[in-house]
């Protein structure tokens, strides 16, 4: 349900109904007077009544008021716990099923009467949406130069940064909007003559080095001559990692166009590369000199990385910035031609690097290859001499041992190219110069505001446009800061066609509606659920829907925590040097994508027989036969790996730890909140918490047994801890383990609050799969909130339950759920 969940609910209830303390309980409405009351008197009131009031819940005082949304939500939470078998505890009499059914029916009726009630919060575009909208509205590239890079972070609710309730407007943000709008228009507009393309190659036709290509160390501290002395090897030989290691790395890249792109535009690149000598490093070089330096795995194919490299900064402390364009696994001893067209902003360049090469000291490298004397010579050279003579000294040793390397036989660059002039962005912004100003402005505003504009609405902007020759541009900037652009104006009740087009597009693409959606909206057809559903299918089939998969999994599974509490680089070197972190995020995205595209049952989130790994993840998981670090393979998961589903995925296991060690409580709360939608109460603020004193306890398990011997702790921890204990079999980056570092064996067994016992993570997953509804309801709720851009409310419950029932029916799957949300009232109404 909502972010607050049961814990928050109960707190809110206690806070909001002080009257309960003084007044006599109101008589429950007739609907609940009969069997349901008996149910509570028989099974609940002894603990949740005047004597004990456990969890600060007094069911004898909980009133039945169908108009009181908060009270209803508490009833719902009570019902959920009963239906999950968590309450009443084992030693109390079982509740009468008819009474439970009665309560369920009454609640559904009360919620149905409330549906659509309650305040709605005006939602604004968040940063991602604003950036993508600028990109598509103006036809500009924002991947490398992001006009929103200085925006303050958006407020997130449970990790979701696109919910109306969490998004505020401020002068910090609005002043950034002003700058971003201006910057984006600068990027879109092309004044001056069309630039002529130029072509460079590493060597020109006469075999003379073209100075526009540089072969240099990764940090641009100087230019190293990397040219191979043997012509048959091609001009350039990359054999060192370029900057994966932390510290004093020697790095190598091949960098295009020394001065960077002379104009923003499309540039064509062509590289002919060859991977040689894989696996030929002596064992001494396979072990990194420092634990946090990248290790070479000889079984992995050589990885070529292409980076966009930003113009060098003006400040001495501004480090260089680069963005990975692409990584490729190279087959051994095969010449590969790579042809790419990239958009480069002014001053940007492209770099080539050998991503999984040896990372360490050059002299150590040469010595290990057998060149002790040459290593000594290298050590004695000055920096400048080294730069000039590095290859000359090193190369013979590379050849002698046929050491791992990537040869670049040819490289060329040409550009800037413009398929049309002026470029599409210029046209998108200025429109047809022959048309009247009002018309040009209206065309732009219609797309920007995602609905037609009236002359009155356009008034303030048109006046700006008419003021001066620069006026049109100023008016366009104003439109990009205007309330109709920044906010989703959705009216009340059922959404109209235009609001539906925007909602759908921002849900699945995180950007503004395309021409087809706008045309359907104009024709009044999107209010037809069948048309809306077909459009959702079209958007899902488009590559732009990767934005939905990436954003949703990141928010839902709390991956931000991997950055906020990153694994310790010394204890978990492979996480950083082996790039396990980003690989793990990719794994979870690919997994989600497959369930979505294949309409797989929701239960596969909790137990699947396959996943997606690259070589780094495969090593972490103990899966053999995957040797590509760039490309991911879909692999079957043998049962003994106990990896199936989200709870075996490294990103989930890392995000639910703290980067140093694991905690059954943190992981347990994580599963309750993120997967089951039942966030436990925070420790009560009005009860002094005894200062934790866990000395004398041997294992983490015993520490928590002590904890749970305190009754007020046990109320929640009996739900939290079992989940966490089962996950103790995975360390803080998701590796399987049977014992802690201390040597104490891990005991992953436990008992669920409903009495089910299990011996390990597989047992826990089976217990969770026995009733997939709580998981499904949580996922449906989070998807619906993401889709509608608002927190769900108690009154949304019946619609949510309907979606859950449909999505958990035999044969139904994730795709059905997403499409079901789109046609539900949650999506089609405000």
């Amino acid at each position, binding site marked *: 349900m909502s972010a607050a969940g049961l814990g928050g609910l109960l707190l809110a209830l206690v806070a909001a109904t002080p009257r309960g303390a003084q007044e006599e309980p109101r008589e429950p409405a007739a609907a609940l007077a009969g069997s349901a009351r008996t149910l509570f008197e028989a099974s609940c009131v002894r603990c949740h009544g005047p004597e004990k009031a456990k969890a600060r819940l007094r069911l004898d005082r909980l009133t039945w008021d169908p108009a009181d949304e908060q009270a209803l939500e508490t009833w719902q939470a009570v019902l959920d716990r009963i239906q999950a078998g968590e309450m009443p505890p084992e030693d109390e009499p079982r509740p009468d099923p008819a009474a439970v059914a009665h309560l369920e029916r009454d609640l559904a009726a009360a919620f149905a009467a409330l549906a659509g009630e309650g305040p709605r919060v*005006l939602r604004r575009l968040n940063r991602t949406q604003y950036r993508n909208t600028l990109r598509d509205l103006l036809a500009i590239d924002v991947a490398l130069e992001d006009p929103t890079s200085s925006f303050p972070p958006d407020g997130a609710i449970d990790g979701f940064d696109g919910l109306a309730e969490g998004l*505020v407007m401020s002068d910090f943000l609005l002043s950034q909007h002003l700058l971003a709008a201006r910057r984006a228009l600068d990027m879109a507009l092309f004044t001056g003559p069309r630039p002529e393309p130029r072509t460079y190659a590493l060597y020109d036709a006469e075999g003379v080095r073209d100075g526009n290509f540089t072969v240099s160390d990764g940090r641009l501290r100087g230019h190293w001559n990397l040219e191979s002395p043997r012509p048959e090897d091609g001009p350039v030989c990359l054999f060192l990692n370029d900057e994966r290691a932390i510290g004093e790395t020697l790095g190598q890249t091949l960098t295009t166009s020394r001065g960077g792109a002379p104009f923003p535009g499309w540039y064509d690149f062509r590289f002919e590369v060859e991977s040689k000598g894989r696996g030929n490093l002596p064992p001494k070089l396979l072990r990194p000199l420092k634990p946090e330096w990248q290790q070479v795995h000889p079984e992995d194919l050589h990885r070529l990385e292409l980076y966009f490299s930003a113009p060098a900064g003006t400040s001495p402390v501004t480090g260089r910035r680069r963005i990975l364009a692409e990584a490729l696994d190279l087959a051994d001893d095969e010449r590969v031609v790579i042809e790419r067209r990239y958009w480069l902003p002014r001053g940007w360049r492209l770099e080539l690097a050998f991503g999984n090469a040896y990372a360490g000291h050059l002299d150590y490298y040469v010595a290990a290859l057998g060149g002790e004397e040459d290593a000594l010579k290298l050590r004695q050279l000055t920096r400048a001499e080294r730069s000039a003579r590095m290859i000359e000294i090193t190369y013979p040793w590379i050849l002698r041992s046929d050491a791992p390397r990537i040869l670049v036989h040819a490289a060329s660059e040409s550009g800037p190219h413009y398929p049309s002039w002026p470029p599409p962005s210029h046209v998108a912004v200025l429109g047809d110069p022959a048309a009247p100003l009002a018309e040009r402005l209206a065309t732009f505003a219609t797309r920007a505001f995602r609905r037609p504009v009236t002359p009155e*609405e356009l008034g*303030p902007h048109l006046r700006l446009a008419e003021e001066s020759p620069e006026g049109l541009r100023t008016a366009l900037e104003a439109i990009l800061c*205007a309330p109709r652009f920044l906010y989703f104006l959705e009216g009340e009740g059922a959404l109209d066609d235009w609001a539906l087009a925007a909602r759908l597009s921002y849900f699945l693409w995180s950007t503004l509606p395309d021409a087809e959606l706008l045309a359907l909206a104009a024709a009044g057809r999107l209010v037809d659920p069948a048309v809306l559903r077909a459009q959702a299918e079209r958007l899902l089939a488009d590559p732009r829907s990767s934005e939905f998969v990436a954003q949703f999994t990141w928010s839902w599974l709390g991956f931000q925590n991997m950055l906020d*509490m990153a694994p*310790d680089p010394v204890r978990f070197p492979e996480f950083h040097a082996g790039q396990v972190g980003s690989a793990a995020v990719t794994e979870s995205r690919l997994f989600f994508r497959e369930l979505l595209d294949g309409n797989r049952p929701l239960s596969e989130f909790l137990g699947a027989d396959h996943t997606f790994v690259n070589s780094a993840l495969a090593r972490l998981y103990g899966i053999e036969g995957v040797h590509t670090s760039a490309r991911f393979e879909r692999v079957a998961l043998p049962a003994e790996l106990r990896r199936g589903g989200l709870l075996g995925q490294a990103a989930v296991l890392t995000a639910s730890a703290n980067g*140093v060690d694991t905690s059954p409580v943190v992981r347990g709360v994580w599963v309750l909140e993120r997967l089951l939608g039942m966030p436990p109460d925070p420790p009560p603020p009005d009860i002094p918490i005894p200062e934790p004193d866990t000395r004398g306890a041997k294992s983490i398990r015993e520490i928590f047994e002590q904890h749970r011997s305190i009754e007020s702790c046990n109320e929640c921890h009996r739900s939290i801890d079992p989940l966490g204990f089962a996950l103790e079999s995975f360390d803080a980056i998701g590796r399987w383990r049977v014992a802690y570092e201390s040597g104490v064996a891990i005991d992953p067994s436990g008992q669920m609050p409903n009495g089910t016992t299990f011996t390990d993570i597989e047992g826990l997953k089976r217990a969770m799969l026995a009733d997939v509804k709580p998981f499904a309801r949580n996922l449906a709720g989070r998807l619906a909130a993401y889709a509608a851009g608002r927190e769900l409310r108690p009154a949304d419950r019946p619609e949510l339950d309907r979606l859950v029932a449909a999505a958990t029916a035999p044969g139904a799957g994730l795709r059905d759920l997403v499409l079901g949300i789109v046609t539900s009232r949650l999506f089609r109404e405000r």
Partner: protein
Amino acid sequence: MTALHPPHRRTVLRGLGVTLALPWLESLLPRRRVEPSPRRLAVIAVPFGMVEEWFHPATAGRDYVAGPSLAPLDALRARFTVFSNLDHGVRGGHAATHTFLSGVKVSERATNPEGNLTLDQLVAERFGPSTRFPSLVLWEGDLSYTRSGVRAPAIPTPVEAFRQLFVDESADEKRFLQAALDSSTSILDAVRAEARALEPALGRTDREKLAEYFTSIRETEQRLAASRQWLHRPRPEPEAPAAARVAACAEQTYGAELLAGWLDLVYLALVSDSTRSLVLSVPSCNWGLEGVSEGYHPMTHHGQREERLSQLRIVEPFVTTQLARFLARLEEVRQPDGASLLDSTQVLFGSGMGNGNSHTNSNLPLVLAGGRFRHGQHLDLEGRAPLCNLFLSMLHELGIEHERFNRSTGTLSGLEFGRG
């Protein structure tokens, strides 16, 4: 640090490495009256409290014995006051530490006339126009809230902060900003007109949200008016050694190096008079100190276990050692009126959490250094006064003579200052 006479001008320049563009250096020119040094506030906050028995002295008064976390500051004892049993009376563990500088929870801002306005943002309101940055919020942005309840965004890395403080925009970038400023007035007028026309058609709650937009327009206008005067003034030249240290932490991820780099940056920001209101908030991090393998957050959940306490026993004195080094450097800088930089800068060190192990928000660790306060004591308030009383005293010392600040009931008795 002993120079009591106004220094030779060259000495100042050499010591600061700053350019003549600084307003107060101009006052060194002959026949000008020496202006009193500007007043400033710098807050340095940690997220998980400090171990109480290591931080809070056992006895009150001037003759206290400093425990292990306070000991690194002992050489500066005359220049600071340490407080005990002073807090905001709020609860909520991590969820309440954001009240450190306001005493008011975000969720309770409606109950206070000034919302949850924080101390630093009030100072920024008053002193803001005098410097390029009305306020600086650094590292973690969890402690600063404006009058309208918006969290002031933080600059997340020392390198980015350095760029904003000391690296002038290129000519192109200046032209860009000037053009943006020039057109901003009419743009804001147009979008305000659009919003006004839009308003009547909206429902009640949508109108309430749109009020945020109107407020933002108004405040943006003020912000832009202030930035007009700074655009074409060159930024100060930073002192080279500290700048080099900031540069050195460009690739650091460990808390230890970052804290040192940030404190260098804070020093540079103050000595260059780039701001008069600054908050540096340490996030959860891995420290990278010898003997420390736990992350900062988990180690504060020590459960009295020796293997965690022994690591905190390294981290907490490390933090106060860095603080002491920072304070000593402020004390070394002499300003034209003869006062040290520490004399004119209040430095508040503390946390919105008291005991990290039990997540209390009471008996906060608090050290106030600098300013013209009569320091040198351990002031045990025994819960007699809210922390906002200390903040009111601090505001008065800064020359902001408000009658109250959020939950204050008066100034803090026992802490006096001389009028400079």
